[in-house]
């Protein structure tokens, strides 16, 4: 597999975006979760086998100053709309994980004629008092992974892959990077990750797949019902043996579900 290539593009408003791309096939826009984009991400690698994957780095993850001109989720959606134009994406599918899935849903709700298919993996964005989204920002950085992963063995395996050869300085840098990414996320989800998406869900025009981990301690799998009831063309599935990190925890199952959904014949 060829490594993903990186580039920086500039929007009409002057903001610069870093993005990573690779693979061949239909266009797929990947919106990353809480940790930004790792070009060696196994999920991105798997997707590149079938798709031309473009993975932009969300504003703030590289430089928090980027957020100073983006006041709310609507302005964030506008920026992504600009980005899609700059990239010349047309007839693409959009897949997001966690915070990225919330953005993906918002882009599709703000601009319903953009993506042809939408897949949301453990999406933030809705709130139900009966099963509140847990507060991942009220735990020490070193314990965040405890609530994200279901299976400690999977977490270990994944963590070791990232940390191999890392010295203390790298670990410190990684902590700062995590803190910076989470800071960017807080701008759009603090103190409650509900910016009115429920009211906008019916605007989403394309077929939408929502996957939740059966053991997700951050976003209860019961949110499947909340998404289903708001979406016009929604289907949902709960993936067994998975926490919030479901594309990493159950990659084969998630890829199978994604493939089935993304390749299904278009309904016209």
């Amino acid at each position, binding site marked *: 597999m060829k490594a993903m290539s990186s580039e920086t593009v500039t929007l009409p408003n002057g903001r610069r975006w870093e993005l990573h791309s690779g693979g061949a096939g239909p266009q797929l826009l990947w919106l990353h979760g809480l940790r930004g984009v790792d070009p060696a991400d196994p999920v991105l690698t798997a997707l590149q086998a079938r798709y031309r994957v473009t993975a932009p780095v969300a504003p*703030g993850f590289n430089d928090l100053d980027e957020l100073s001109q983006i006041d709310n989720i609507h302005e964030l959606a506008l920026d992504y709309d600009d980005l899609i134009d700059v990239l010349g994406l047309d007839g693409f599918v959009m897949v997001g994980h966690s915070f990225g899935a919330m953005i993906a849903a918002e882009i599709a709700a703000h601009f319903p004629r953009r993506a042809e298919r939408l897949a949301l993996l453990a999406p933030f964005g809705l709130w139900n008092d009966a099963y509140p989204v847990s507060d991942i920002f009220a735990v*020490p950085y070193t314990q965040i992974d405890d609530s994200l992963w279901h299976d400690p063995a999977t977490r270990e395996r994944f963590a070791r892959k990232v940390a191999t050869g890392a010295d203390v300085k790298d670990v410190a840098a990684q902590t700062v990077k995590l*803190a*910076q990414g989470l*800071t960017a996320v807080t701008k759009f989800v603090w103190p409650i990750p509900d910016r009115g998406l429920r009211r906008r869900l019916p605007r989403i025009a394309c077929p939408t797949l929502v996957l939740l981990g059966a053991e997700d301690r951050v976003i209860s799998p019961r949110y499947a019902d909340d998404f289903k009831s708001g979406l016009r063309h929604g289907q949902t599935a709960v993936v067994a043996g998975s926490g919030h990190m479901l594309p990493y925890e159950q990659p084969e199952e998630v890829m199978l579900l994604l493939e089935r959904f993304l390749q299904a014949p278009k309904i016209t």
Partner: protein
Amino acid sequence: MKFHFFHLMPYPELPEDFREKNRSVWVDVPSHLFDPAVGHRAYNEYLDELEYAASVGFDGICVNEHHQNAYGMMPSPNLMAAALARRTSGVKLVLMGNSVALYNPPTRVAEEMAMLDVMSGGRLVAGFPVGTPMDTTYCYGQSPATLREKYREGVDLILRAWSDPDVFSFNGKYTQLRYVNIWPRPMQKPRPPVWVPGGASVETWDLCLEKDFLYANLSYFGYQEGQKIMDGFWDAVDRHNLPRNPYRAGFLQFIAVAADDAEAERLYAEPALYFYRRCLNIYAGYVNPPGYMSMATLKAGIEGQVSRIVNRAGARAEMATLSWKDLVDRGYLVAGSPQTVADRINDMADKLNVGHLMTLLHFGNMSKEVTTYNTRMFAEKVIPKLRSRFSQWDDNWFPRDTPLQTAASPATSLAAVP
């Protein structure tokens, strides 16, 4: 040197096993532990203690703002300052202060502080803390990503609301007001002195020095621990090419004065351990939300100060085993005879160069009787030994004495209504 009596107003009856049974004294402290009758007694005794401090010669009496916190029962310090304004004269009211980003619109802060300044005859010190993460982000729901920007905008609005003689419009990012024209206006001109209680952030130091605010470090861990932070502040003063005037800075210190070391331990060990073991039981997850510290401070912190602060606040296990001897040896508390205490504060003045000492002479569940003793001992036997320190410097960060400060006062008896 100036001396202030600082009161945190802790809830005095947290159970013995509070630490074992509850993860945090702050944010999600269980409501069933609060007895309003205990609160009623505590508030009134605490106001007595502040008024007593004023009567024995402290320069200022200090109140501050905390939310959903069992060691700081002052969600609104302005209410306490208003009560104190009527019952005191001469002493300055150090409001340490209002977390500006929590008030919508922030002109509310400008108005209430102006009221206090006018009511008290120009005795107000206006404190503008950013506020702790517990208070601002968890209890009051502010996004840590925007808290500091919102705070700075609010400070700018308040300063202008105090000083601009004309009605003006304010088109901010967080506040938009068509007509700003507060009544009353502060008595002190051009404005009341502003103090910023803060942690160890370069951004806070720069703000203080750019706007001529006093910087106060409110640490619970004594002046040895505070040395690095104050060194950082004075380095920033040098960078701004300003004189190292000690009256630019304040520092908080726990103090326990007695006839001798043995009496100090007998009187103060229990309330001190109550504070460090029960009141400082803060869940580590609430101490450092992403974005509360700037990335620059966080990066610097991994090598130094911030990790210490984070580790300190998160070190619940360590707090549980602290002894009186630990507290004194580490300098969290300055304790002992008047001479011992004066020597230590002289040492602090040498090392930290702070002109404004905020004393915590009440802490934990200390009784009113013991608090009064501690306060009197400090005022009568310690302050005179230290008063002349830094007398060569002008203090431009404190209200001036004016004749007005005693001009109006409450009637001693109410005339019969005809």
